[in-house]
């Protein structure tokens, strides 16, 4: 984007504007494009979810507004806009007003570091991953504010649940990402993606692997476990169905959204779906290579890049289109998995949710971090780091040894923890029976 703007202003028109002005224009342009894309993504996601979940329940879903009901979300949007905006008398007017804003704003911020295709990232921050998760935790404040300001016990309960859930599931999410960050040695999302070239084995781990854009993290034991843990945590953070207790309709009306109507409610809805999209996108990026796929790496090597200024502009476009296609395909696949999970599982109780997060996911991801350290030691370190014995091995050999060791470690940890967890659950059930027994005896 910088290149195009710079070329237009300084070369074509010859205005000779300073770099910061061009940067400003470029960033404003990117932000505008993103703000136009995001609501449409959300509209499509709601439609997609409703159609897919309907299919899973042997129904048809919305199919009357436009061809195959594609304009249903537009109709819903019109409805939202024209609805009356109700603020309860006992509500705290200002906090009630800014609550949805605080919830939506972070989800928009998170797009700043999201790469769409090769060379297509709004801002390549060197701590992009950290930024992503730091900003996502801000929306908890908005939830809390809107839940409290509604002056409604269901809203407050929903907000409490939402925040407790977000805070506890951020830990396994970040721990599973920590393993990946250990392996790549970078917090930049772009670096994470470029790391995942190769064919089942990352070409960054083993040099000389042909680049088919398939060296995804999910093919390693560390990455696989991290993926499972992260995706479960993402379901909890996005308040998707097995973990949708903050807005459990059958228990607490609609949680923190209870007292909202019209477009403020629409903003919550928007934030939720945009967050879901972002979580699917970040899953696709971190564990499934983002825009990496067969052909993109080769196309991008021919294109104009800072490393290759003499490239062909056509390849920029081709690599971009293919990369965005791969990226969106993966993202929508994960959104489909979210819908699939919603169709399959029932809602957890809050104690089950907390048990699962704290007793199973966090120990599992902690073990995974250790596995990641072993992986890094075996594939990257040498005599200088105190690992002299791996010095003579071939890279593929080192990779294979690391694979086997981490696989065994993760499997053992998984089965052990699951056993401990199920025992603790049995114990809890036994205790519940005991309580019941005691109550009966008292009566």
């Amino acid at each position, binding site marked *: 984007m910088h290149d195009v703007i710079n070329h237009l202003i300084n070369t074509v028109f010859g205005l000779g504007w300073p770099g910061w002005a061009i940067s400003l224009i470029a960033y404003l342009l990117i932000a505008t494009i993103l703000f136009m894309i995001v609501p449409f993504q959300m509209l499509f996601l709601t439609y997609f979810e409703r159609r897919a979940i309907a*299919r*899973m329940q*042997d*129904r048809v879903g919305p199919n009357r507004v436009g061809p195959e009901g594609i304009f249903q979300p537009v109709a819903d949007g019109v409805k939202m806009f024209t609805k009356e905006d109700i603020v309860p008398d006992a509500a705290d007017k200002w906090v009630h007003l800014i609550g949805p804003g605080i919830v939506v704003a972070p989800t928009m911020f998170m797009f700043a570091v999201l790469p769409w295709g090769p060379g297509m990232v709004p801002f390549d921050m060197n701590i992009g991953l950290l930024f992503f998760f730091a900003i996502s935790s801000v929306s908890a404040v908005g939830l809390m504010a809107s839940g409290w300001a509604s002056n409604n016990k269901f809203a407050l309960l929903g907000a409490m649940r939402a925040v407790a859930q977000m805070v506890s599931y951020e830990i396994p999410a970040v721990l599973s990402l920590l393993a990946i960050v250990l392996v790549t040695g970078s917090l930049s999302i772009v670096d994470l993606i470029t790391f995942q070239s190769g064919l089942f084995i990352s070409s960054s781990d083993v040099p000389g692997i042909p680049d088919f854009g398939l060296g995804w993290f999910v093919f390693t034991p560390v990455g696989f476990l991290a993926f499972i843990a992260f995706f479960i945590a993402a379901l909890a953070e996005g308040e998707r169905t097995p973990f949708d207790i903050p807005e459990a309709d059958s228990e607490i009306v609609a949680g923190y959204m209870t007292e909202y109507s019209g477009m403020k409610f629409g903003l919550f809805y928007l934030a939720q779906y945009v967050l879901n999209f972002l979580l699917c996108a970040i899953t696709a990026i971190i564990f499934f290579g983002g825009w990496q796929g067969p052909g993109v790496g080769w196309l991008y090597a021919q294109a104009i890049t800072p490393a290759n200024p003499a490239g062909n502009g056509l390849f920029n476009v081709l690599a971009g289109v293919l990369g965005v296609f791969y990226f969106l395909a993966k993202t929508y696949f994960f959104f489909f998995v979210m819908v*699939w999970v919603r*169709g399959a599982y029932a809602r957890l109780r809050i104690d089950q949710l907390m048990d699962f997060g704290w007793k199973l996911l966090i120990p599992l991801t902690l073990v995974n971090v250790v596995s990641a350290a072993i992986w890094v030691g075996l594939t990257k370190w040498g005599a200088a780091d105190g690992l002299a014995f791996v010095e003579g091995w071939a890279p593929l050999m080192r990779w294979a040894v690391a694979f086997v060791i981490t696989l065994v470690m993760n499997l053992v940890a998984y089965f052990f923890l699951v*056993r401990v967890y199920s025992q603790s659950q049995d114990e809890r059930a036994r205790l519940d029976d005991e309580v019941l027994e005691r109550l009966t005896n008292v009566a």
Partner: protein
Amino acid sequence: MDIQRGNIIVMDRRRGTLRAGQGLLQGLKVVWDHWVGSFRKNDNFSQIHGTFTIEYPDERMKLPQAYRNMPVLLYDDETGQELCTACYQCARACPPEVIHITQAKDPNTGKMVPASLEFIIEYDACMSCGLCAEACPFDAIKMDHFYELSTDNRMGLMQRKADLNRPVSYYTSIAPDLWDEVKEGAMKKLQGSIKRRPDVIGIAGHLSEKIAARRRQLAAEAAASPPAPVAAAPAAPAGKLSPEEKAAKLAAMRAAKAGGAEPAAEAPAPAAELSPADAKAAKLAAIKAANAAKKAAESPAAEVPAAPLDEKAAKLAAIRAANAAKAAAEAPAAPLDEKAAKLAAIRAANAAKKKSE
């Protein structure tokens, strides 16, 4: 997977360390199977996969013949005589007591005759139990299949006799087997009650009014000179005419001629005596209209999904025929012509339906 209804499937929980997480995957598998299966239609309802949805405004459920919604009154297609004799059996049987009947009297003698003067059913309170139809000894009250009754006017749900009257042919179109069972007895009883009905009493309301109007007119004409009834017919519709429209108009004109050929002096004669000639004309018109409808509805294959189309075309032709007949009737024409044309329309619709099926 076929499941027997009423069977309880006990799932094995399979608790164990090595199977941890398998239950979750099984759940996903079940949902996946439904997702994959949902892309085909589930027709026989014994399957658990496939889409069950009947997309209502576009598709309708095939209703069983014995389906019952709201009660209607039947009258004979050819003579227009109502089957109802105002015996009050239905009003007595009605649990919410929404049926109100007034029996007709002979204007000359003041005696009760076996026909209803007014017949009201309050649809808003009717509970579709069908007891009235069961109680009716003359098979005059039957349960309709029409269910799109919602309205913004509650009083619109108070149905008078004119709203309730349906020809027998309509009932045979929705429940042929049920009608076949009772047809003979009903018709025999109808003949019996017709004999005891003087003049136009007992003829479906919208027809008897026409008959009375026509009689007045004929009486007036008898005083004046006889006009040319046909001349006025082509005046109303102008411009291009589609083939089926032409055919319908032809039928209407012929019917008008047949009606007009009746000697005007015979006006005070009973309506029943008028009927044979009219019936002939009506049959003629019906055949023509049916042909026209068939021509209009030349769909490539008489498949089931094509049925609505055929029906629509047939209805269109029927409406046009009725319009043409009305246009002809605007000029001094026999009032029964219109009846004939309407009958023709109904027949055409039936024929089209039969053909499409």
